[in-house]
C-alpha cells in the first residue's frame, strides 16, 4: 500500500464517552449536511464547528463515537475539515463508519492525557506514532489493520464499491 505523509495539525481535545448524539444530534437528522455539521459537538464546545480549521485533529478519551450507527457522526467531522481523530479508544461502529467514509482514525491509549486543545500534533497512521510537537512526548497508537487502511486509502466503501469490491480482502 502507498505510504501516506504524517498528519500535522492543531488539536481539539474532548473527554470520555463522546457520543454520536453529541457528534450528530438527532434533532438535525433530516437537515442538510451544511446545517447538520454546524451542530457538531455544540453541547460540549459551542465554538468547535465555527472554529475548527482544515487539517485540525480531534483528540479524545475512551469510547469515542459511542451510540448510534449514524455515519453522519464521522461525516460531520470530515466535512468540517478534521484530518484525523485520535482517541484512547473508539466505539466499534464509529471506527467502522470512519473507515467507510474515509476519515482517518487512530486508537492510542493515553493520548487524552498527553494533549490539550491547541497543541501541535503529528500523527503517523501507518506506524501509529503520535507526537506532541510542543512537549516532545511520543505515544504509540495501534495502527488499523492493513485491510481497513486499504478501504481508508481508497476513499471509503463507496469508492471500493465503484472499483474492485472487497475481493482483495477475501
Amino acid at each position, binding site marked *: 500500500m502507498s505510504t501516506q505523509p504524517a498528519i500535522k495539525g492543531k488539536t481539539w481535545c474532548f473527554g470520555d464517552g463522546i457520543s454520536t448524539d453529541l457528534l450528530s444530534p438527532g*434533532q438535525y437528522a433530516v437537515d442538510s449536511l451544511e446545517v447538520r455539521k454546524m451542530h457538531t459537538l455544540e453541547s460540549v464546545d459551542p465554538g468547535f464547528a465555527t472554529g475548527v480549521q482544515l487539517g485540525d485533529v480531534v483528540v479524545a478519551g475512551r*469510547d469515542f463515537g*459511542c*451510540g448510534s*450507527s449514524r455515519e453522519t457522526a464521522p461525516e460531520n467531522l470530515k466535512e468540517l475539515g478534521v484530518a484525523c481523530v485520535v482517541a484512547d479508544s473508539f466505539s*466499534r*461502529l464509529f471506527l467502522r463508519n470512519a473507515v467507510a467514509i474515509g476519515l482517518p482514525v487512530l486508537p492510542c491509549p493515553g493520548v487524552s492525557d498527553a494533549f490539550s486543545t491547541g497543541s501541535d500534533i503529528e500523527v503517523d497512521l501507518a506506524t501509529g506514532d503520535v507526537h506532541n510537537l510542543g512537549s516532545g512526548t511520543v505515544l504509540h497508537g495501534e495502527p488499523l489493520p492493513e485491510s481497513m487502511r486499504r*478501504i481508508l486509502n481508497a476513499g471509503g466503501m463507496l469508492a471500493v*464499491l465503484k472499483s474492485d469490491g*472487497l475481493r482483495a480482502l477475501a
Partner: protein
Amino acid sequence: MGMTLAEKILARASGKDRVAAGEFVVAKVDLAMTHDIFAHQVFDHLVDAGITEVFDQEHTVIVMDHLVPPSTTAAAEQHKRIRDHVASFGIENFYEAGGGICHQLLPERGHVWPGMLVVGTDSHTTTHGALGAASTGIGTSEMSYALATGTLWFRVPETIRFDLEGTLGEGVAWKDVVLWIAGKFGTDVAQYRSIEFAGPSAAQVSVSSRLTICNMAVEMGAKFGMFAPDEVTAQYLAGLEDSGVVEGWEKRYAEKLVEADPDASYLAVHKVPLSEIGPQVALPHQVDNVVPVADAVGTVIQQAFIGSCTNGRLEDLAAAAAVLKGRQVHPRVRLIVAPASRWVFQEALRQGIIQTLADAGASVLPAGCGPCFGGHGGLMAAGERCIGTHNRNFVGRMGSAMAEIFLASPETVAASAIAGHIADPRELAAATTPAASQQGTREEDIVYATSHQG
C-alpha cells in the same frame, strides 16, 4: 479448539470450515435492514454507483420508523424519496410509517432466523441475537455496499459469556439485569466483541426479554449479543406459523442453526446472580452509571417514557399497565407510551392494556422511535428530567443538552410516573400516598455531573 456462536456463523457465512477471533473475513449477509433515517442515502449511493437491484429481495427490509408520522416537511420529503427508491428497486419487504420499529418488526414478521448474519443501519441491530442470529449495526455506505454485493467485511470478534444463574425477584425485570451488567462491567466491556447470554437460567428468559437484553448489548460496545437458540426460541418461531406470519418454521429454524462448541474459547465468563439483582436505574449521562433504584428514589421527574426497541413490546406495556392499573399519573408528569409496533398496539388494545394506560393518564403515540432518538414526540427543556425504558441517556439525546435522562424497567418507569419522582415499583403502595409523594424529593440536591466536559 472449538468455536463460539459468532465464530460458527461467520465461518459458515464466509464459506470456511473454521475461523478464529481476530481474523478478517468477507462474509455473505443473510438479511439487510435499513430505516427512514438512512434509506434515502443508502439508495442514493446505489443509484450513484449505477446499481439497479439489491442482492436479494427476500432478505432486504426497509422500515419507516423514526420520523413517523413525519414530524417536519423535510421528514415528509425524505419519506417520499424513500418510497420512490422502494418503487424503482421493487423492494418487497417495505414497512410503511406506523407499522412499527424495525427491531420489533424483524422478529415479529418472521424475517430473523437462528444462525443468520444480519446487518442493519441502526446500532440496536444487535437486538436480533435474541433469536440466535449474529446481528449488528453498520453505516449507510456499508449498507449500500452490502445491498449491492450481498457481502461485507467482518473482523471475527472475541466472545464474552454472561451466565445467568438463579431466579429473578418479584418486581424485577430483565431490563434490570442488563442494566446491572452494564453498571458492573462498563460500557466498553464488549467493545469489538460478541456477547453470549447463557447459563442455567437463560431458559427462563422469554423472547421478548431476550430482545430487550440483546438490544442493550451494543450499550456495552458489543458487535453481537446473542442467546443460543433453544426451546424458547423454537416455541416463539412455531408461534409465528400458528398466527399465519410464516410457513415451514421447522425447516427455516434448522437451516442455519448453530451451537457453540463445548470447548469454544471465551475471553471471559461472568456469572450473573439473578437473585441478588433488584430494580436498577442508569443515571445521567452514561448507560453504565447504574445504581440500585433506592439510590435514585425521590429524584423529581417531569416526563416518563415507555416504549422503544428496548422495551416497547406487549410484555413491557402489560408490566407497566399492571403497575398503573387503578392509579393516576402524577399531575406534573407527562407519561408517554409508544408501542413498538401496530401489532403490539392492537394486542394491547384487545387485552385492555391501552385502556388501563389511558385511564391512568398516559398519552399513547403511534408505533415508532420518536422520543427515544431525540427526534420528536417527547423532547425536553433544560433542567427537565425523564425516566424512560429506552436505551440511552446521553447528553442531548432527548432535546436540550441540559435535560437529564434516567433508564429503567417498565415497572420502575410506571411507578415513577405515579409518584412524580423516581420510585421503587416494589414499594408502590407507600410511594403513592400523598404524603410520600411530597417527602423525600431531592430536586435541588442531586447533581448528575457530565463526564463530557472536555
